[in-house]
């Protein structure tokens, strides 16, 4: 059994515990059961921040060491980060529809900057998809991965910078504004989602390593007879 599968198993157990705690925690006095969506929304966006920070670290480390595994880490983390950003956006819109009466509010900078961050990393993935050569792809995407992370603090601090519908974080250095049961449920879900993130990143890295091996084997076996790819021809 691969380590990724082991982590997926642990993540499944942790998510089950998180779901049970989320469903048994007392609902919010004003929002009712809809407040339970916090247990998916907050962990998803926490993972988006984590994933894009890891992408930046992987990118810088690749530029420093040129080891392929750092490029795989950056790519895998960006893909998983985009997935969790999408989940965070959708759950935020569902929550907003219920609480604010609208799914999308342009006056809410957290929502807008999160959507922008989503597009930045879609651009990162599009760049990777446009380059065939693995070394060129790793080098160029590493540079973008290191630059794109400037978006993350903008998203995080947007609730402090602007007047907004979105609340500031409930957990602050001076304590939490949430009831203990709700806080515990959310923290367990944050932990469960983080384990899921680790499992997904590991699985994606394994797939990427297998793809690279297959590509190398194909190049070795068929280099003599394979016609050049269009991208290899260049301008003619």
């Amino acid at each position: 059994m691969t380590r990724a599968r082991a982590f997926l198993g642990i993540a499944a157990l942790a998510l089950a515990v998180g779901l049970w705690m989320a469903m048994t925690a007392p609902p919010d006095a004003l929002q009712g059961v809809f407040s339970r969506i916090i247990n998916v929304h907050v962990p998803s966006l926490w993972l988006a921040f984590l994933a894009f920070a890891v992408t930046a670290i992987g990118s810088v480390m690749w530029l420093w060491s040129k080891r392929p595994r750092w490029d795989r880490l950056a790519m895998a983390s960006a893909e998983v980060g985009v997935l969790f950003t999408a989940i965070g956006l959708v759950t935020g819109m569902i929550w907003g529809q219920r609480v604010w009466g609208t799914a999308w509010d342009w006056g809410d900078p957290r929502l807008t900057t999160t959507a922008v961050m989503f597009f930045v990393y879609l651009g990162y993935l599009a760049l990777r998809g446009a380059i065939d050569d693995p070394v060129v792809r790793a080098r160029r995407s590493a540079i973008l991965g290191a630059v794109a992370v400037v978006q993350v603090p903008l998203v995080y601090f947007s609730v402090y910078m602007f007047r907004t519908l979105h609340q500031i974080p409930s957990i602050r250095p001076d304590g939490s504004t949430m009831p203990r049961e709700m806080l515990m449920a959310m923290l367990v879900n944050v932990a469960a989602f983080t384990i899921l993130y680790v499992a997904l990143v590991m699985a994606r890295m394994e797939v990427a390593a297998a793809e690279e091996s297959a590509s190398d084997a194909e190049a070795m076996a068929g280099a003599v007879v394979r016609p050049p790819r269009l991208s290899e021809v260049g301008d003619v």
Partner: protein
Amino acid sequence: MSFWHQTLELARVDLTVERRLGETLRIIAPFALVALAIFPLAMGLRLTLVSEMGTAVFWAVGVLFGMQVGLRRSSSDDRERRDLHALLGVDPSARFAGRVLAGSLLTTIFLVVLFLAMTVLYGPELPESAVLGATLAIILAAVGLAELGTIAGEITWGLRDRTALASLIVAPLAIPLVIGGSQTLQAMAGDTGILPWVLLMITTDLALAVAGVALARPLEEATR
């Protein structure tokens, strides 16, 4: 040759090439002015709305077309010129700085032309004192767009889908500049403080400058 000498010389060469090609003022600027003229028609010629939307449209058009200035042909070296720079021992950081310097100057001119056109076409209600704030916001936005355009242009150099891909990369990353620029003008119109928005733009410009200089050598290696 010192870093600054190299920077100035490379910027001068870029501007000379641009003067000959004229891509910014002959193609991009007229296209942006057409876009500026289309918006009031799309708003159904409601004059109050047009006046209110003037600065917003300026920033939208300015950033979308301003990034094309950063991605213009004269800022993209062919392989021979890159090899020549490498053989001459040109500092990659100076290459980045020179390109940003030339791009900033061109983008500033482009945005000034666009801003003047917007004030004539849309008639926004801006106090006279807004000129200083607008100038500052335009310069800071131009520097940021030139930095982003240079980085994105290098990352996508030689790729089949270069123009579309570079625009996809630059547009979302330019959001802090759009926010800073538009809020600066709004603050000037409402007579409130512009400092937070100017600081946001300066921080973005500095972060991009540090990233561009630090990553200049890998950027150069990435395209060889």
